[in-house]
């Protein structure tokens, strides 16, 4: 039975990805994204409230304006909550990992 010498494994060349420095720019980009999104959600809520005020005082011109604005605000809020739930779940998942 021949015993072959174990050839030395070539050194794994470092890939470009590992060469990239981990800087914080990605984090700030994501944070900015979140902030913009939350601002937009807030804007939709405020717009919906304005239309509701018009409805209550009888100054509303088009009924569909208030229903559409309410629905937009509603949906964006639902989406935000859903994303928040997912993020919290992901965080919990990570915390549960045993190092």
């Amino acid at each position, binding site marked *: 039975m021949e015993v072959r010498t174990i050839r030395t494994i070539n050194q794994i060349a470092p890939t470009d990805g590992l060469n990239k420095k981990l800087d914080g720019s990605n984090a700030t980009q994501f944070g900015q994204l979140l902030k913009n999104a939350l601002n937009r959600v807030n804007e939709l809520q405020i717009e919906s409230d304005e239309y509701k005020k018009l409805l209550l005082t*009888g*100054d*509303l*011109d*088009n*009924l*569909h304006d208030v*229903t*559409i604005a*309410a*629905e937009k605000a509603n949906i964006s809020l639902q989406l935000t909550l859903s994303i928040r739930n997912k993020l919290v779940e992901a965080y919990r998942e990570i915390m549960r990992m045993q190092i």
Partner: protein
Amino acid sequence: MGMFDSINISASALTAQKTRIDIISKNMANVNTTRSTGGMPYRRQMVVFEEQRGPSFSSYLEKHTNRFNGKGVEISEIVEDTTPFKLKYEPGHPDANEDGYVMLPNVDMVTEMVNMIDAQRAYEANITAINGTKSMLMKALEISRR
């Protein structure tokens, strides 16, 4: 402005047509009235329709934006028909003049009937308009029901 402007417009027309029918009925009821105010026979009455517009500071602006200030129609006045009275030869009538002619109201039943039908048709058209607006509003509410 308001979301019920459309309905207000149609409602104004309903009121106007109803008044018109009232005047027509009055004319028809008095077709033979020889003694009215001032000793003269009854004089036929007519309604005058007038378009109602809300206040607008510039009609040019109004035509080129979506601000619409139309408010329907109203009866601006009720006038008397100045066509001359009809003359009928009836010497035995208490109101006959010395030639034996009686002055009768200038009301023509056929004209009144035609106007009555026209007013009814207009009334129904405006009712249909209100129902259309109502169905649109209910549909708009459906957006938030889901």
